């Protein structure tokens, strides 16, 4: 039985790390720009399909893992400059509507370019088999995802906590107007953060591809768990996004394994529980 537990915990960890990669961009954009970016699912979608084409074209997964997020980041920057910037002073609902519209736009665009069929993204040859770890069998690719995701978490933490750029971002999250007043071009920072968040969304799409395949509605499918993670972890918090993802990953995995009939309920129960005790989320700033 401990072997079962370990195997399921490992499954939950892989799923949680995937959720982290997905939600961290969303939480970053929310924290900095105060925008609930529903189009984040579209960045995930675009990342997966860009990755698909790059792998088909070059045969190199690693190149796709690098180039697809860059492309998606660029699209993110364009969207921020052209569509989102004029809406910052408008009520949040306008931004929600705009980004909601992008979900449909990109879903149709993907169908138009790549067709409606489900496509699979092959894992890199290095991780195509499965590995036995303390009696639990896990696909090697999932082990790679776990390691990759945790390394990303550390790198992001270093970037935000230990660099000058990170200091600017943190200042912007705290008080954008004041940061602008200190002589920092806050508009450029906004564009940069949005593009960076979008690129992270694209990155998670490439990473998820070999596990979950690529299909036009994948962006919408993943949006709900991603939003739940952000709510549980706390809006705008990197640590919250990581812990929230890992908690939801385990809750959902053990829910499926032990209470299959109510597995869909479990993550909502966790979310409701967290919101009752800490409405701002596990690591969010207290509500004003």
């Amino acid at each position: 039985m401990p072997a079962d537990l370990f195997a399921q915990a490992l499954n939950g960890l892989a799923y949680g790390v995937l959720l982290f990669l997905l939600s961290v961009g969303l939480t970053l954009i929310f924290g900095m720009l105060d925008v609930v970016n529903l189009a984040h699912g579209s960045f995930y979608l675009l990342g997966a399909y860009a990755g698909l084409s790059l792998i088909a074209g070059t045969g190199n997964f690693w190149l796709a893992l690098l180039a697809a997020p860059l492309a998606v980041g660029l699209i993110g920057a364009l969207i921020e400059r052209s569509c989102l910037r004029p809406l910052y002073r408008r009520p949040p609902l306008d931004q929600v509507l705009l980004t909601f519209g992008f979900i449909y736009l990109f879903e149709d665009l993907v169908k138009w370019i790549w067709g409606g069929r489900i496509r699979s993204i092959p894992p890199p040859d290095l991780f195509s088999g499965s590995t036995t770890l303390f009696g639990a069998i896990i696909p090697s690719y999932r082990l790679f995802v776990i390691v990759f995701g945790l390394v990303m978490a550390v790198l992001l933490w270093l970037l935000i906590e230990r660099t000058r750029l990170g200091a600017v971002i943190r200042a912007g999250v705290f008080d954008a107007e004041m940061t602008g007043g200190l002589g920092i071009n806050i508009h450029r920072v906004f564009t940069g953060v949005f593009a960076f968040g979008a690129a992270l969304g694209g990155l998670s799409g490439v990473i998820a591809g070999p596990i979950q395949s690529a299909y036009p509605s994948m962006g919408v499918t993943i949006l709900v768990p991603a939003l739940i993670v952000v709510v549980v972890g706390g809006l705008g918090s990197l640590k919250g996004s990581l812990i929230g993802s890992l908690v939801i990953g385990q809750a959902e995995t053990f829910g499926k394994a032990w209470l299959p009939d109510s597995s869909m309920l479990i993550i909502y129960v966790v979310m409701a529980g967290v919101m009752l005790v800490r409405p701002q989320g596990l690591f969010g700033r207290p509500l004003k």
Partner: protein
Amino acid sequence: MDKVTRRKFLGTVGLAAAGTAVGPWVLRAGAQSGPIKIGVVLPYTGVYAVLGESITQAMELVFARENWTVAGRKIEMIKEDDEMQPPVGIRKTEKLIDSDKVDILTGPVHSGILMGMRDKVHNSKTILIVSNAGADAISRARCSKWIFRASFSNWQPNQPMGGWVAKNVSKDVFLTAPNYQAGKDMMEAFKETFLPAGGKVVGEDYPKLGETDYAPYLTKIRQSGAKAVYCFFSGSDAVNFVKQYDQFGLKQTIKLSGAGFLTEPDVLPAQGKSALGVVTGHFYTPLLDNPTNQKFVKDFREKYAGKMPDGFACQGYDTAEVIVRALKAVNGNTQDKMKLVEVIEKSEFDSPRGRFRFDPKSHNVIQPFIYIREVKEVAGGLNNVPIDRVANVADPGTGCTLPA
């Protein structure tokens, strides 16, 4: 003045009333020479979008063959996206029946939508040719003389598999399917012949429809001691389940089998080598060597950029074929609904799947064969190669009291 006004008023009311009474007759008479409207309720977005696409493409192939004309009247398809959501599907059904006034309705993919639209269709005396949804109840207690099914009942591809798997694969089997009506129907049908053949269900799990991570279930399957898995998944679920099953290394030790939808051509290219060796039961495979099928596969691939037709396409073909033949038989007269029902009931023709006919007891298609197929590498890539078959599989139709 007063009187004149009143008279004028009454006259106007009278005219309006006459107009209202006569209006529908005038319109109907016009409709007889106007286009024949075929309503289509299918998913064009979401998990099962590719199914809707295949069904539509095959229908259009048949109608195009007839130059979109039958008995001198144009055929007009009115397509509605049900988004795989019962409330949406039911709303679209009402729209097609009430405002478009379609002559014949077709669809849906989702069993839940079929059950939801059933009463509306029955009460409005609309002829519905079901082009996918397999909810058993529609051939049983909830059957209707207005409803025909040209696809399958969920029971049909699964019931013969139970005995076959127990005899040829293993008696220790783990069952899994998406958590909705069709999934449960199919597993129950499997058990009908599996348990009497000495089979033992070592575990059962019903993941949600549209699941993306099957890891927890796969870990449970490994630990259950099962020698084989029997499952039903379709669309993106089928791709993710089969791929993850292989990634977790289960394929080598636990034989994977299931309802035919698991490895249809809509998902097979994405599953790739992970699907090799998977055994499924289905009423169709593009490899059938009857002449109708050979022509169908050729025409379909020519029209749709080399795409291999799947069972869903076969269903679309048969749905359209039933419609075209019935309309010819009544010479384009869609007024006499009873007559139309009578001729549809007598439909019999060579379909890509074999000799097509409805069971008069349930209005459900009698499957000429259920083929047991194995995914193998053949010329042109992976395909479902028939390795065995069971003839004349008709739904028991328990509880259906046609004509009703």
